[in-house]
């Protein structure tokens, strides 16, 4: 819920921190795109497993922490995939039922196929997303944005939001603790009151902070500019090569398994 659960926190300490962010983004975004274009669940499954191994063994992210992360997309995926399996229909009916006589539900081998595909697409896509967020700190991504000619104003606003998130999160965390210690949130009605006090309090302090912030920026001759940081390690041929080969391999797998069905 609070700062310690942020992926950013883990990213700042991961073992692949020094690898050039472009290389890491290529792997993450490449995997996402390949996942989206997979015709069946095989390559997403392979991607899910291989990206997880990379995250745990190469980036040295704590496995328990990572497993807990995987549960975040799981409930959404399971719920939605169930719907897809039940309504998609198909030729080979395994089970069918007409709910309230207006909503025909059925499970077919095609719909299972489709459900599996969507499920593993979500898992593989999330693993790729996890890979990016667990290995590439946002601070590096700001540099990448600059390289991609994203407008300065957009990056500046993002950087300020980033900075404030961490300040306010710390505050919110402490306020929440303080309320718990005075037995806030103990009953639904009290919880509502406690929440509104928490938000209101953060709101007020942050407005205050905003004023100080502008003053502090003025003291340093603020003229509408932020410094952009562009130094990171150069792209290494070897790591770039591995990523390239990996993506090539997955592409080949997609082509080979194209006609496979359950």
């Amino acid at each position, binding site marked *: 819920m609070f700062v310690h659960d942020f992926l950013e926190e883990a990213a700042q300490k991961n073992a692949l921190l020094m690898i050039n962010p472009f290389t890491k983004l290529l792997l993450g975004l490449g995997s996402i795109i390949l996942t989206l274009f997979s015709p069946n669940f095989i390559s997403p499954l392979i991607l899910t497993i291989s990206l997880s191994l990379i995250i745990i063994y190469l980036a040295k992210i704590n496995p328990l922490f990572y497993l807990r992360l995987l549960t975040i997309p799981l409930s959404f995926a399971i719920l939605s995939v169930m719907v897809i399996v039940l309504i998609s229909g198909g030729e080979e009916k395994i089970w069918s039922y007409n709910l309230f006589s207006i909503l025909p539900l059925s499970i077919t081998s095609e719909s299972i196929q489709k459900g599996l595909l969507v499920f593993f697409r979500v898992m593989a896509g999330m693993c790729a*997303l996890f890979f990016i967020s667990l290995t590439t700190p946002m601070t590096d991504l700001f540099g990448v944005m600059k390289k991609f000619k994203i407008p300065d104003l957009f990056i500046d606003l993002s950087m300020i939001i980033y900075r404030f998130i961490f300040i306010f999160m710390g505050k919110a965390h402490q306020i929440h603790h303080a309320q718990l210690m005075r037995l806030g949130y103990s009953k639904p009605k009290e919880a509502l009151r406690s929440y509104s006090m928490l938000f209101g309090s953060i709101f007020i302090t942050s407005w205050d902070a905003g004023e100080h912030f502008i003053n502090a920026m003025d003291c340093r001759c603020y003229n509408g500019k932020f410094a952009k940081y562009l130094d990171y390690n150069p792209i290494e041929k070897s790591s770039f090569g591995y990523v390239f080969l990996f993506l090539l391999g997955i592409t080949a797998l997609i082509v080979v398994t194209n006609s496979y069905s359950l």
Partner: protein
Amino acid sequence: MHVMEGFLPPLWAAIWWIIALPFIIYGFIQLKKIINDNRDVLPLLGICGALIFILSALKLPSVTGSCSHPTGTGLSAIIFGPFITAIIGFIVLLFQSLFLAHGGLSTLGANTFSMAICGPFLGYYVYRALKDTKVNIYITVFIAVALADLFTYVITALELALAYPAEATGFIGSFITFLGIFAVTQVPLAILEGAVLALVFKYIVNI
């Protein structure tokens, strides 16, 4: 309710990106104008973005417990207007996907459309419409925020249904199914968020 990475097929992911982009770009142009007039607004917008992020990162107690977060964009729309909220909301959603694994990159377009565009627009106009009537200001905030939240969830269900229409009943059947399933978490959440933000509003006014 965020659409997870990988959930939308490539075609739909692209379509929602294309629909969301004009709003983001127009919001950005507006933002630039405001900043050119008064550069001090930038930190304030930053604060607003961080607040939205924090609001949505705090889990409210809900029935199923998972991925149910208030969107927080309603309040921003009331204060800054819907287009500015679109751009701030877009950045916040990007951070949410990267920091908290809520949402995704390919689905960012769809999420932006439902959470940073549709919800705030509705909330903003409801607020504008009720503001000058006799309705109590806190009830106005409650209605605007709760409706913004509900509308967000309706749009999300729409996005899911369009991508995965039902065989027998088509898009409509699928839409109703998604709507029904997520109603369990989203309807109470919308009411809760409306109530909390109305109280926050009261709190702020009191100070």
